[in-house]
């Protein structure tokens, strides 16, 4: 099991803010809108540098999606910013018709996703957003794992034409992806090669999967850790190749089991390469208030849960 140095401890939303500033400097077509959460999404960096290209949307997410669609259809590259809950469920029909169906080049950027939002509780802890967004035809869905990857993803999506959902979070989290690691939309990132079990993880749980990899190594189990930052389009070849090699699979994500990354991988493997599969995800439940660490433990998303899932998956191999 490969060891990863913790380079820093930073929130992924700050990676988004830094990436937005950088791509704003590179491409004058980039504009940004935020629904009264400019500081929370660290969009103040862009706002201060490009006040004429930043638009305060107010607490009007539906209108923000429509205005962004119009600007995109006219030739701009709008980035919308609000919490993940208000970026998806609240405005699903606006995204579906004005953005996805109209193929508007809008980048829907969503912070505070999942349980690690913490103390604000279940009203704000959306665990359904990946599923909602991946069902929309043509929508790209990305959930990066640390500050550096979020920054790189933010820059990458501006260079891609088409609607994108970019999901990130609130807490400070270990930074372990190096700054020079290329971000390729739809390309899985091999973190550590192994032979006994494949662990496909996305978002904050990628770090938990690495921790689980070390726990498994101590038990003499060789885990392959793969970072699926792009849930749609899924890197089909990478998933199948790893599942074929190890013979069993664990998925890990800060999302409902229904509709998430595990659901996408299970569907793929059921159709192409039936493989024992265990999912580490929230099981048809809302979250609650608590610290991020407490919540990950309570809802079964900790590194020990990934380790246990890997052992279950291995035991199901023929």
């Amino acid at each position, binding site marked *: 099991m490969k060891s990863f140095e913790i380079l820093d401890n930073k929130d992924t939303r700050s990676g988004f803010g830094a990436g937005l500033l950088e791509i704003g400097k590179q491409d004058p077509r980039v504009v940004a809108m935020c629904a009264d959460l400019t500081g929370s999404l660290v969009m103040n960096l862009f706002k201060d540098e490009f006040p004429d290209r930043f638009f305060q949307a107010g607490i009007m997410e539906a209108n923000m999606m429509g*205005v962004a669609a119009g600007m995109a*259809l006219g030739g701009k590259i709008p980035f919308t910013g609000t919490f993940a809950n208000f970026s998806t469920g609240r405005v699903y029909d606006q995204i579906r018709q004005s953005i996805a169906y109209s193929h508007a080049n809008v980048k829907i950027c969503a912070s505070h996703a999942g349980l690690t939002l913490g103390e604000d509780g279940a009203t704000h802890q959306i665990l359904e957003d990946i599923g909602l967004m991946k069902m929309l035809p043509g929508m790209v869905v990305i959930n990066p794992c640390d500050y550096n990857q979020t920054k790189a993803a933010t820059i990458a999506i501006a260079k891609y034409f088409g609607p994108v959902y970019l999901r990130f979070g609130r807490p400070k989290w270990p930074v372990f992806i190096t700054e020079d690691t290329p971000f390729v939309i739809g390309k899985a990132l091999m973190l550590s090669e192994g032979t006994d079990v494949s662990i496909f993880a996305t978002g904050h749980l990628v770090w938990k999967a690495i921790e689980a990899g070390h726990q498994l190594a101590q038990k003499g189990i060789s885990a392959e850790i793969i970072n699926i930052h792009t849930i749609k389009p899924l890197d089909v070849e990478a998933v199948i190749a790893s599942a074929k090699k190890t013979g069993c699979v664990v998925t890990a994500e800060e999302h409902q089991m229904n509709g998430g990354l595990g659901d996408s991988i299970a569907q793929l493997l059921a159709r192409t390469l039936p493989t024992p599969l265990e999912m580490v995800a929230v099981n048809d439940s809302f979250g609650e208030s608590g610290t991020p660490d407490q919540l990950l433990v309570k809802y079964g998303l900790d590194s020990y849960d990934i380790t246990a899932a890997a052992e279950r998956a291995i035991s199901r191999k023929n």
Partner: protein
Amino acid sequence: MADINTLPEIARQVRRDILRMVHAVNSGHPGGSLGCADYLTALYFHYMVHDASNFTPHGNGEDVFVMSNGHISPVFYSALARSGYFPTSELATFRKLNTRLQGHPTTHEGLPGVRVATGSLGQGLSVAIGFAMQKKLDGDTHTVYALTGDGELQEGQIWEAVMFAAHNKVDNLLVAVDFNQQQIDGSTADVMGITELVSKFRAFGWITLEMDGNDWDDIHRVMPQAQNQLGCEKPVIIIMKTEMGQGVDFMMGSHAWHGKAPNDAQLAEALLQLPVTELGDY
């Protein structure tokens, strides 16, 4: 730009198109389409600056029209075809399998003239504002025109957009509300009152005008006034009174023909009231 004296005849042909299109597939929305036939004719043949022969999805360098009430697609398609965006013969494919003329307008099949999908109500005004802001950012001095239904004003997103446009001084936007006071379940007064529109929009900071959208003299009186109000740091709206089913006597005066197609006899009777023009049927 067509001579204004020819506009009534074009609008009559548009009305024939609408009736024949919905009759052919026994579905669609003739009522609001007939009511807005004069306004779309006025826009596409006289008041908008646009180039039908070189359609671009982004609309840079020309006026842009967003029809938020997408269900009145028959009038939109006829106005587009009659002004040269695609062959009028294609109107015969309306709502049929593999058509570019979907039940509600979309960019998805690449129909020239359509820049955004509409149909789920309340969204097009926000999109129009986005187009208008993009034009300002790019120094494009053309105008964005938008049309909404009046029942559509019941959607919350409309009022978000109304507030947003005024706050951002989106003054290159000219919106018309199709004030026919009818919706699917009955009159707007019975279903969900949308009273005092003029004072509502004024209170939100819009320049507000009133117009009879089925009276050519009034259209030519109010439209230049509305255009003159552009660029005054406020969005402009016309409360446009129309009659659902305008031009066909038995379709006027109620909500009955909002989303109902005429049968063979009704079509024949309706077309008798709207004689074919020199433009000819598609």
